[in-house]
């Protein structure tokens, strides 16, 4: 591996300052959390750090605590802890299920929520060292290449899909992301955290290079809230979502008061489908209505040459998941 210095961070502010300092010295600095994603990129020399700022030593960011009726999840909470936490399982099932669907036990034991949300794309062009937008280049090789796992929504100029399983769950739950930089902190809604390539083709989110995703707040669950995460993979474990759906329904007996549907694996960001949500609001979810919502969810999909299959696939999982969740005993 390339030579670099590991710097253990004490708190997010100091981590951010370390990054800022490195940048001033013209050094490449990267934040590290669980390690799996970043070390792979470093070994392939896709990422060439001079300094690794280790966030695993941050104090107090590895716990889940109550806050203002909801919960506050430290960015360093592991996916394993998250998926087994009784309160998350009960009140925010979609997040527990999303965390549980990630990769393998070994990765979930050390991979963190912040790391999962901020991981780089798993597009095979990027991961194989092509000089694409995500690597600082100026083209997307998937457009005319092998694009079976690429975006059907929101693509252009890059057609990556966002790789995180927890991200669609967090958007569906109206989470708020606390970001700490050298100058201070800010909080952004999950939906505003992720950015489309047309806003910034090189990055997947609003984090500046010296900002840290410190923690994530979830609002208190609404009355009758139930949720689930469904993930379709390319083998039965350890792939990113070919397509996934995070659903949160607010149910009043058998009537759906409101719905949140956020798709994974279809766009460069977690992809919310408001038209489908609207169809479900105030209704009893029948097979017919679920099918209509699925149609609405995929309206406007714009597949590339080799990923048209994602359209019927996504329809099927939206329809099935909405129906199953609404009619669950």
């Amino acid at each position: 591996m390339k030579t670099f210095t590991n710097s253990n961070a004490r708190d997010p502010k100091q981590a951010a300052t370390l990054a800022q300092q490195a940048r001033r010295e013209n050094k490449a600095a990267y934040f590290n959390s669980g390690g799996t994603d970043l070390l792979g990129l470093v070994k392939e020399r896709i990422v060439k750090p001079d300094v690794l700022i280790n966030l695993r030593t941050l104090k107090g960011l590895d716990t889940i605590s109550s806050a203002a009726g909801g919960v506050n999840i430290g960015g360093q909470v592991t996916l394993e802890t998250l998926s087994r936490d009784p309160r998350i399982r009960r009140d925010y099932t979609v997040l527990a299920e999303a965390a549980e669907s990630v990769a393998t036990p070994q990765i979930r034991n050390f991979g963190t929520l912040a790391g999962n949300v901020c991981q780089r794309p798993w597009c095979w062009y990027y991961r194989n060292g092509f000089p694409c937008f995500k690597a600082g280049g100026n083209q997307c090789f998937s457009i005319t290449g092998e694009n079976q796992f690429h975006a059907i929504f929101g693509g252009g100029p890059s057609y990556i899909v966002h790789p995180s399983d927890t991200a669609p769950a967090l958007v569906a739950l109206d989470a708020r992301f606390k970001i700490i930089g050298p100058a201070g902190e800010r909080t952004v809604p999950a939906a505003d955290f992720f950015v489309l390539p047309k806003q910034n083709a090189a990055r997947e989110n609003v984090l500046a290079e010296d900002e840290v995703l410190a923690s994530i707040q979830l609002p208190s669950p609404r009355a009758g809230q139930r949720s689930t995460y469904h993930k379709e993979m390319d083998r039965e474990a350890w792939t990113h979502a070919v397509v996934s759906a995070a659903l949160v329904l607010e149910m009043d007996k058998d009537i759906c008061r409101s719905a949140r549907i956020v798709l994974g694996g279809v766009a460069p960001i977690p992809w919310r489908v408001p038209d489908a949500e609207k169809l479900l609001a105030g209704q009893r979810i029948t097979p017919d209505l679920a099918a209509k919502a699925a149609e609405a969810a995929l309206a406007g999909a714009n597949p590339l040459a080799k990923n048209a299959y994602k359209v019927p696939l996504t329809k099927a999982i939206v329809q099935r998941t909405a129906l199953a969740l609404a009619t669950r005993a």
Partner: protein
Amino acid sequence: MSTPNNTSRRQFLERSGAAIVAATAAPALEAQAPSQNAQNTISPDPSVPRTTIKVTINGSPRRIEVEDRWTLVELLRDHLGLTGTRIGCDRGECGACTVLIDGKAGYSCSQLAVWMDGRSIQTVESLAQNGNLDPLQKAFIEHDAPQCGFCTSGQLMSAKGLLNRNPKPAQDDARAALTGNICRCSNYNRYVEATLAAAGVSSPQTVQRFAAAGAPFAALKTIGHETPRIDARERVTGKATYSGDVRLPGMLYAKVLRSPHAHARIKSIDISKAQALPGVKAVLTHDNCTVVWGAGGIAGGQQYNDAVKKITKQRRYAFNNPVRFVGDPVAAVAAVNRHVAEEALQLISVDYEVLPHVLEPEEALKPGAPQIWPEGNLALDTRNEAKPTGQRRGDVEKGFQEAMADGGHVFEDRLTTTLVHNAQMEPRSCVAHWEGEKLTVYTPTGGIANCRADTARDLDVPLENVRIVCQYMGGNFGNKNQNQDSDLIAAMLAKQSGAPVKVEYSRKEDFIGMHGRWPTVQYYKVGVSRDGTLKSIQLRGYSGMGGYRKNSGNIGGIEVYQCPNIETTIYPVYTNKTTSGNFRGPEYPQGYFGIQNMMDEVAFKLNMDPVEFALKNMTRKANDQNPYTNYTLDECIHRGAEAFGWKQKWRPEPGSDRGPVKRGAGFAFMAFRSGVGRSNAIIELDSSGKYIVRVGVTDVGAGAKTTMGLIAAEALEVPLSQVTVDWGDTSRCPYSVGESGSRTTIQTGYAVVEAAREIKKQIAEKGMPKTGERYTASTNPNPTIADNKVRATYGAHFVEVEVDVETGRARVLKYLAVHDCGRVMNPLTAASQIKGGAIMGIGMALHEELLYDARSGQPLTAGYYGHRVLTHRDAPDIEVIFIESDDGYGPWGAKSMGESSKVPAVAAVGNAVFNALGHRMRDLPITRDKILMAAQRGAEVRA
């Protein structure tokens, strides 16, 4: 340092030889077992950041100064001597490096050592306490969990992590907990069984044995009973030493620079900056190394002999110009450690003239296609002739006419299979070491004798000066039969640097730099009479060989049909993909997929049950003329259909299940070569009464060492405990054919029987040896089969799948493999082989592909993640039925087995998907995108 430029290899050897003797006199050769306190011999580079950490390793608190960039596995293996933790991918994709960190399973390749400050690490070495194995280790041995053993430490640590938090897991819990651990031997069933057994949870019985109908044979004393492997303890304790564990004093580390282009001419290479980097000891390029890698081209080492070497026009060098695929070696650097070697690669500047490339074999034969060799893209054979291979019997055109005249049909179809990689768990790692003119190479090879002959020929040194050692190896599957370029590169770097050199390929390099199964395009034309009798079969096939013809490129499978008119024409074609070569049943799994899906389609069109169609048309005489030594194919099919419930599971109308989730069943049958032939064995006996059996096998994972021990014990009429097997070292072991072609048990096993007979004769004549006496029996039998008979192993696989036509997901629900492998030597290891082959076949059918970007010629899916190698969660329980027989050949009727279990698997899964879905999936792998699009098209057609 200086590098001789533009010198021939011979001149180079002569020039550099003298200095090397002194430099390498010190290392002792028995250093195969790495010293536990091996110290890093490199003085620390002050420019590399280092940190002192406090960490508890296997219960002992340690203070260790580490480089910030060291991974945990690097610390464990290279600096603490804990080599039981393996590196399979180094990317968090395979799990071979799994350890417990504060009690939780983690990938030690994906953690920096510096992050372990204050933590507690447990490795496989901690499991046994005071010599007592952990219950998991005991269960792993009893249930034959480790085959090649390379993934075993990781599986054990994941299982340990599971039992730590869940002492009574269910089968699904075990699968989920272990699913981050890939086993390419695909022994998933056994790992789960063993984990559950350690927790006191039993698993269903999945293996049955029957004697072939009407052919009873006597049971034996040692053979035929479930026997744990004789080296299983080493495999579950981390003590087994693979080539990557070898560490010699003063050893350098080498890395290879590879072509980033699919096809390019190297105009110049500037290595001056790399040479100037402190710590770099040797640099090789095509400028200063013109060694030919004989086994890398021209149909493999078996056919690459001195005569071929002399005449061939298409030489593959260790470093080629032009480069013919992404991954073709361009340069190699040996340096004091792997980081410096890697850094040096970055400093080599290569000026390429990029040439047009072609990836698909049919395209490559078209006029105007980029020319990969001056002689054209149709691969030359060993006589420099460019012509397709094939066979012909009868007259196919006449056959088609006869079929039509009879009121029958002629069907045509095109089926394709893709490049899939062997993906054995152990990536290539070898150590070369010269002592004067004598070379020792520690390398993973399934054939130490072939590897030795190849290496001696390639380096132009006398055979007796080359020693090949391979004590343990992490899987083969056809990928490690001869020598490999890494052996030559290591030897040449060792020569140039005057020190032992270890060459390490990364997982990605192993995928793109070694070889995978050749992709094929198969055009079939089949004539069949009205009653479903085959009249004529024609196959035109194209095999993509990559830039070099390492193996045959054949497409097999037609020969299992009884048909008077047959014609096959197979074009082995050069392309700019990675090299293709042998992979478990070289030409058959892809050929069987083609022909048996074709025949399944013919049966469907004729409205026949495919099992009935097979029974009507399958082989009963080899090539329609030679009788078999025994024949049980009918019995395999009948018994299998009955046990599987074929009539209930197979849908007469494919795709007819109501609703989106449809079930269906598929079937394929097999008759596979099981010849006899030459091999050697030595048995020695001294006054201790212990027999030493020396055989030139290395045990790729199939259990050859144990099988040889069982055969010796049976033949000597002594308990297995009285037999010691010695293997894997050409300085002690006689020639063996190597573990390829599923022939070790038959050929080397028979040599062991002969040696036992011989030593018993000596005992009968002279009594047992007295103190100081030693008897030796060395045999070299070359048995043949009488009366023009042909020997084959038979089988039939039955698969039930579930296909969701709205999501495209296909899943195997039930799998039954019926095999006649003759007499089963060790039912425990034999069943593991069958299960593994079937699971590999499922992977090839449904998931795996080394996919290329057409424009750049870059591989996109090199690695376990991208290639979608199956995980624990993908692997169904494989049920196995053995139909046993003794045809009088081989040791007590043993037949070949290792490859045969994969041969019909891909075809059977493909047929099952058709039966469930109602659409023939003609192109592998049958992934969800193809299933979904077929289902969509079907829905449109129906609407």
